């Protein structure tokens, strides 16, 4: 039991999020909650997801009612031990001030860019604490794919999410579209950022890229986190790659997005719109086509990146048991790695089970560097 | 300007094609075989042919509702035109344009235009494209005396001068805007008098005389190609038929048309001039007459047996490139 009063606040999922809506409460007022328990579901314009209790105690107040729209940082509820007097709780609620600027779209960190190896890379640099953690997103995504993870992880250390070549705000030239080429490119960006030692986490295609980087420069990589990673076996859903590459409109993209999640209900129209926003950028589709042709032709992964894998790098493998894009069985590829499978999650396990995944990554980084 | 034998033969062939085409259309319309509105160019052949002799397929023209002559002079396919007038699927516009919107962009013919005064702004655009893309090409807008009084025309004269466009304004003054005399409707009497107000040269030409038109147009086109800006030509002549087919022309003087045909026929004038100067022989010209007669008869025969557009398909296509 904590002695203090903990606020449950509206999170900021992604840079554009200004407000969210309360869509479900999972605990009654006065009920006991444990740390990590899902207490309330919130829907941002992008995605619906659950917020977990940061500490155990009693849910003393449900400040926001179902359907309420709150700005980022707004008070949703209050958790405190039974011993805290009612008057203190009331005073806390009454005195709570939504952090200034948090709700504004202009506030918060902004994407920066850096030139490296003749390319421009976009990246989002949050938090402080060495060694930093570098996040590499998947095929057709961008650094915003880490919106559930980066802010939380950045509470403990510096976290840099970077756009792969051909994606997001990075330059559209993807070279030959090979994982090795992408890894070399990201390597130049890491050098340009002056990172000598860092943790590396990659999702899907970004996982393969992270593996290749770790293989090429193991001495720099403090630890490696592979989330539903490519590069660990030949199987991949070729239909998904083809449909994703071809999708131009909401209907097509909705089908694609639903493949990514175990629970299709997580796919809001806004999430689909965000995926389309990435794809509408000039050159993105062409870049995806090139990568798909080189690395994922005929529904097979062309490169076995893990082959020269250095045992020296501590590795955590995270997978969703219901991953329909890359099979969870690939998690066994790296012997000696720590393996964490979330049976109910899909390919976007870091979004679907973000609280637990964040905790795992945070602890793994802390233990290794 | 000295014209080669080939050029003379071509000019006569074009004028004869226009005349025979229009006479034929007149007959076909009278029998009820052709639908819609048709406005015939017979009597005005020297203008279209005299101007277009200086142009190639990359030079653009915009025509009027009386557009068949401009089409033929610019090199449009005569059979395709006849099929279009018959509303056939294989007409130059797929049967969707008809007489008043007949066009062939591949020949630089940007369309007959059924909106009087609709063409000059578009011609400014064609000239602007030539200037911007530095193609050395020019644009010509044909406008009637009626169209000379439209605001669009005044605006275009001004814009063409301000932008110094490679554009020739050809005002074909046949004396009538529909049934209204240009002596009444054109303030100041002569359209050519408007040119100085827009800071451009203006030339009035006898439109029955191919050689006069050819010479004046040649200078205007050259000036435009040199980048010296627009020119206004007023071509004065008369039409052999009514405003449109079915027009009883009671507003015209008794005997006016017969006198025009007898004394001012531009084809007869051309024949007289070239044969008397021994540039071409009567036999040369007779051969062309026969050749064109066959061409036009053949085009009518072809049109009659050509398929109609398919309402299930063709009604709905060609609205957008992609929608």
């Amino acid at each position, binding site marked *: 039991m904590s002695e203090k009063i903990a606020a449950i606040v509206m999170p900021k999922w992604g*840079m554009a999020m200004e407000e969210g809506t309360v869509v479900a409460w999972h605990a009654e007022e006065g009920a006991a909650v444990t740390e990590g328990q899902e207490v309330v579901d919130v829907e941002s314009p992008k995605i619906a997801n659950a917020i977990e209790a940061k500490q155990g105690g009693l849910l003393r107040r449900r400040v926001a009612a179902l359907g309420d*729209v709150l700005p980022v940082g707004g008070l949703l509820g209050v958790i405190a031990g039974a011993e805290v007097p009612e008057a203190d709780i009331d005073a806390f609620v009454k005195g709570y001030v939504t952090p200034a600027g948090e709700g504004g*779209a202009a506030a918060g960190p902004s994407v920066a860019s850096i030139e490296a190896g003749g390319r421009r890379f976009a990246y989002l640099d949050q938090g402080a604490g060495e060694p930093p953690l570098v996040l590499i997103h998947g095929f057709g995504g961008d650094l915003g794919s880490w919106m559930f993870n980066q802010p939380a992880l950045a509470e403990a250390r510096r976290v840099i999410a970077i756009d792969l070549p051909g994606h997001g705000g990075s330059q559209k030239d993807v070279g030959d579209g090979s994982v090795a080429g992408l890894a070399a490119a990201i390597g130049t960006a890491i050098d340009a950022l002056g990172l000598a030692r860092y943790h590396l986490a990659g999702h899907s295609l970004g996982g393969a890229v992270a593996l290749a980087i770790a293989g090429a420069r193991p001495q720099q990589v403090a630890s490696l986190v592979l989330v539903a990673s490519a590069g660990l076996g030949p199987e991949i859903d070729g239909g998904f790659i083809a449909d994703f590459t071809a999708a131009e409109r909401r209907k097509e993209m909705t089908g694609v997005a639903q493949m990514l999640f175990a629970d299709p209900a997580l796919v809001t129209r806004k999430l689909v719109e965000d995926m389309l*926003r990435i794809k509408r950028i000039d050159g993105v589709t062409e870049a995806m086509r090139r990568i798909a042709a080189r690395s994922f032709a005929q529904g097979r992964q062309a490169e076995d990146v893990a082959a020269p894998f250095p045992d020296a790098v501590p590795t955590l493998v995270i997978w969703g048991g219901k991953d329909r894009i890359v099979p969870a069985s690939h998690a066994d590829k790296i012997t000696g790695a720590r393996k964490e499978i979330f049976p109910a999650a899909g390919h976007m396990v870091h979004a679907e089970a973000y609280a637990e995944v964040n905790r795992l990554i945070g602890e793994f980084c802390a233990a290794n560097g | 300007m000295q014209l080669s034998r080939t050029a003379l033969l071509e000019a006569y062939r074009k004028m004869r094609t226009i005349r025979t085409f229009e006479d034929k259309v007149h007959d076909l319309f009278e029998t009820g075989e052709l639908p819609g509105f048709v406005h015939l160019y017979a009597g005005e052949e020297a203008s279209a042919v005299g101007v277009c002799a200086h142009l190639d397929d990359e030079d653009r023209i915009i025509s009027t509702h009386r557009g068949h002559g401009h089409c033929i002079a610019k090199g449009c396919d005569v059979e395709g035109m006849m099929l279009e007038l018959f509303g056939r699927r294989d007409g130059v516009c797929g049967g969707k344009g008809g007489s008043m919107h007949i066009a062939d962009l591949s020949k630089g013919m940007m369309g007959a235009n059924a909106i009087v005064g*609709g063409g000059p702004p578009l011609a400014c655009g064609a000239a602007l494209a030539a200037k*911007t893309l530095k193609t050395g090409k020019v644009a010509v807008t044909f406008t009637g005396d009626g169209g000379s009084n439209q605001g669009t025309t005044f605006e275009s004269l001004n814009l063409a001068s301000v932008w110094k466009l490679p554009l020739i304004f050809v005002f074909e003054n046949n004396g009538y805007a529909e049934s209204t005399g240009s002596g009444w409707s054109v303030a100041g009497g002569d359209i050519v008098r408007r040119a100085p107000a827009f800071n451009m040269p203006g030339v009035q030409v006898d439109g029955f005389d191919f050689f006069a038109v050819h010479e004046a147009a040649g200078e205007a086109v050259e000036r435009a190609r040199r980048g010296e800006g627009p020119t206004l030509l007023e071509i004065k002549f008369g039409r052999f038929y009514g405003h449109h087919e079915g027009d009883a022309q009671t507003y015209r003087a008794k005997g006016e048309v017969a006198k025009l045909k007898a004394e001012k026929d531009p084809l007869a004038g051309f024949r007289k001039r070239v044969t008397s100067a021994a540039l071409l022989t009567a036999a040369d010209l007779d051969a062309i007459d026969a050749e064109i007669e066959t061409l036009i008869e053949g085009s009518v025969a072809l049109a009659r047996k050509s398929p109609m557009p398919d309402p299930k398909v063709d009604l709905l296509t060609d609205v957008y490139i992609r929608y």
Partner: protein
Amino acid sequence: MARILTYREALREALRQVLEEDPTVIVMGEDIAGGLGAPGELDAWGGDMGVTKGLFGQFGPERILDTPISESAYIGAAVGAATCGLRPIAELMFVDFMGVCFDQLLNQGAKFRYMFGGKAKTPVVIRTQYGAGYRTAAQHSQSLYPLFAHVPGLKVVIPSTAYDAKGLLISSVRDDDPVVFFEHKVLYDEARDHVPEAPYAIPFGEANFVREGEDVTIVAIGRMVHVAKRAADKLAQEKIEVELIDPRTISPLDEDSILESVEKTGRLVVVDEAHPRCGMAADIAALVADKAFKSLKAPVKCVTAPHTPVPFSPVLEDAFIPSDMAVAAAARTVMA
């Protein structure tokens, strides 16, 4: 990369990028640079609303063309040039001025493709501002887009956000058909949004779901999207969940998204700043009556400006423009 830009800045960036990517793109209009033939500075205005400010300096007089006040001539020239290899973007300062030049679009540009049997290509964009709210009264405040949506051959684009403004303008310029692009004069400064720096193109006929809800569908156009958003916020406090749809283009119109939403909610409110007769509100209401009648749980409500010219007096103009209160009231009516 996402930065916050105003609607005006987003439009200017789109113009700069299409001018950079394609040498056949030209921009023309009245005072789009400003100061030609005048003793003071060049590029003095950058257009009536400053959207084109700075382009003259970068691209020069051959690509940024000031025109005399001759809408027929230069709108027509833009149309004509489009058939001859250029991609002109003509700025019509206020859509109200279409009254003096409509022929060049209505009878010319819109018809070429069809009249000429599919052989013409007319990639012209007419950018124009519309809408009330600036106390500019009857001849500078109209929302005339239904006139254009009525005409086959034209595409009609009405962005409500800075993000859409940029992506839709780039799509408009790359499109091979004539496009009329409507910019709400109040949004130039009021609408601001995350806008990627790189060029991007938003497809036509793809509505945006501004928010999702189960109870009532609101379709709103242009500036009315923002009005409807405020109404939806109010309604959420009353536990009425609005699904707000911004069609973004009204020709083509994303019928599927509207129908799909109404089939879910069973209720429809259409919000339009144009007049009620033969407008988009009536059009969308008719669409739903025709194709999703059985899904309806209540009659469709239309919230539009009245059948009057736009008045001058601020008191009257404020009453003319559909309000968030009116939208919320309409939603409550269909929920009752």
